[in-house]
């Protein structure tokens, strides 16, 4: 039996660690140069799913919607302990906002079938919207608990969760299935297992297998795919057509929100008055602030 979880993850640019190398000369960030990482809170979400599996058995399935190179984060999830991974990738998904993304993810989940939990990070660090989790839960018509801090108790058909609220916390009990979004403090993700790295570093998506066969007339994709499936190294790869999705609800066409304008933040010159840290100058500053009724 066991308890089955699906974890929704995202590959994101590492916006938190912006070093000098990714700064352009005009003081703006060169987004293309940022390293791509597995979103931290998604990793925390995976950790919670794995803990449930450790205790009750079951299966942990990872899904991500993204470009072909998002397979990197799926392999990381396999290194941590996930059983299976899906890359949902199609050019027609480009420009998807959170509504279009949640449509694709919810349809993928319907196709995967039975589950007790869906996990996701609270938000991704590139957009910080925290919307895809709740939007997916709504499309699946299941309950959600956002800002999960701790899973207190897993029952046969219910779960008790502590979640953060403004100014404190609350304890909720939900029937299963439920979608949980998880904050960073909920758990410390386990390190990759060396054995699993050795096993899964060669796991490949269909797109990667296609690359292997390019220019090699002796290799056939279908054959290779069968071989990878047999070795447990195939990362399931689904397109819009595989999922029989409504094209008008995918990508830019299915996205009500559009980016109208983007301005890079450039630091202004700064016309502040320079004060030297001497007794006299500090004294003059303080007197001025007092006269202006700012201080005192």
């Amino acid at each position, binding site marked *: 039996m066991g308890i089955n979880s699906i974890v929704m993850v995202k590959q994101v640019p590492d*916006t*938190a660690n*912006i070093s000098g190398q990714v700064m352009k000369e005009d003081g*703006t*960030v060169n987004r293309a140069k940022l390293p791509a990482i597995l979103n931290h809170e998604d990793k925390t979400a995976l950790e919670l799913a794995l803990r449930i599996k450790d205790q009750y058995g079951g299966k942990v399935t990872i899904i991500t919607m993204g470009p072909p190179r998002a397979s990197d984060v799926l392999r990381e999830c396999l290194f941590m302990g996930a059983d299976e991974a899906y890359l949902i990738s199609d050019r027609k998904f480009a420009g998807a906002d959170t*509504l279009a993304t949640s449509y694709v993810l919810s349809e993928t989940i319907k196709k995967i079938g039975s589950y007790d939990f869906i996990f996701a990070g609270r938000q991704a660090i*590139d*957009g*910080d*919207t*925290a*919307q*895809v989790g*709740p*939007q997916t*839960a*709504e499309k699946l018509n299941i*309950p*959600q*608990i*956002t*800002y999960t801090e701790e899973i207190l108790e897993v029952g046969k058909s219910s779960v*008790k969760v502590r979640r*953060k*609220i*403004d*100014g*404190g*916390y*609350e*304890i*909720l*009990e*939900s*029937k299963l299935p439920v979608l949980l979004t998880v904050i960073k403090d909920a758990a410390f993700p386990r390190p990759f297992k060396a054995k699993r790295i050795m096993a899964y570093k060669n796991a490949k998506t269909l797109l990667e297998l296609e690359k292997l066969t390019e220019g090699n007339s002796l290799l056939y994709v279908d054959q290779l795919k069968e071989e990878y499936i047999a070795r447990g190294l195939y990362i399931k790869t689904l397109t819009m057509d595989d999922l029989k999705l409504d094209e008008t609800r995918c990508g830019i066409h299915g996205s*009500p*929100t*559009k*980016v*109208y*304008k*983007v*301005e*890079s*933040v450039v630091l*202004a010159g700064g016309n*502040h*008055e*320079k*004060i030297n*840290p001497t*007794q006299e100058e*500090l*004294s003059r*500053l*303080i007197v001025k*602030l007092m006269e202006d009724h*700012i*201080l*005192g």
Partner: protein
Amino acid sequence: MDKLNRDVWVFIEQRNGKPADVSFELLAKGRRLAENLKSRLISIVAGYNAKAIAEQTFHYGAVECLLIDHPDLEHYSTLPYSRTIINLVETYKPRVMLFGATIIGRDLAPRVASHTKSGLTADCTDLQIAGIKYLKKDYQDLLLQIRPAFGGNIIATIISPDVHTQMATVREGVMRMEPVAGSVNGKITSVSFIPDESDKIIQLIEQHRQESKVNLKGASVIVAGGYGMGSKENFRMIYELAHTLGGEVAGSRAAVDAGFIPHERQVGQTGVTVRPKLYIACGISGAIQHRAGMQESNKIIAINNDPDAPIFSVAHYGIVGDVMDVIPKFINVFKQKLR
């Protein structure tokens, strides 16, 4: 276009029967948006015994309140709240709907937007109504939803041009609360709530909420420390300076992450937005996320040993030096002047 609803709705958030400040901030902004749209500002209040909150919204410019009052709505709960709000949005189809970017707002708004297929933009820092050209088409009276993105390195303007209802969540403290001058009157329209089996899927077992004793928003002097303070011990200097000046203590996100200061005192994009008379930034480099939360302060003093720190770009007075040297001097001089 004439027949379509052009109203601006604000979801009024209440916790333990107390309305959240951000809801009134949104009403003040919503009032202006409604003026631009030549339409009405409507507050949406859900709760139990919440009539007083409904009436309060008229003091911030709402001309009508849709009130859903029922014991089952006493505490926020995702399913009954979203079901109720979804029904209202589907019935009336407002042009604009605003939520606070709080934990409740960020739980509720995506659920409503998903069901009604509305555009939803998270964590806006500014909202405007404007006519624009997008992909060679002219759009009248669109909601421009302005938000920092990409870790605060860019400012994006988001639009929802082709759907009727444009939704946004807005950060706390970014808009100003502005009560309407003079007497006000508004109409309360009661909306009935019919309990549903699904409301019981999630049960509230217990709730702990503590009103924060820290009042950064109301402080006239704030002394804030950053990662550049170096250690928790050094951070005591911040408390001493704040105490001497009669101000409050705050910190940057880096200082919070380093454990120098609790999160409730964090100023910036993921903390509080403040506008004191005087803001003294000590050992804060001034990432955009931090500047976004303090740059509207009346006067800003920056103390940092790096003359190129971005904090100086928003400062009125800049002191280049070691914080552990400058702050004690500042305290001494101030004490002398008081005598």
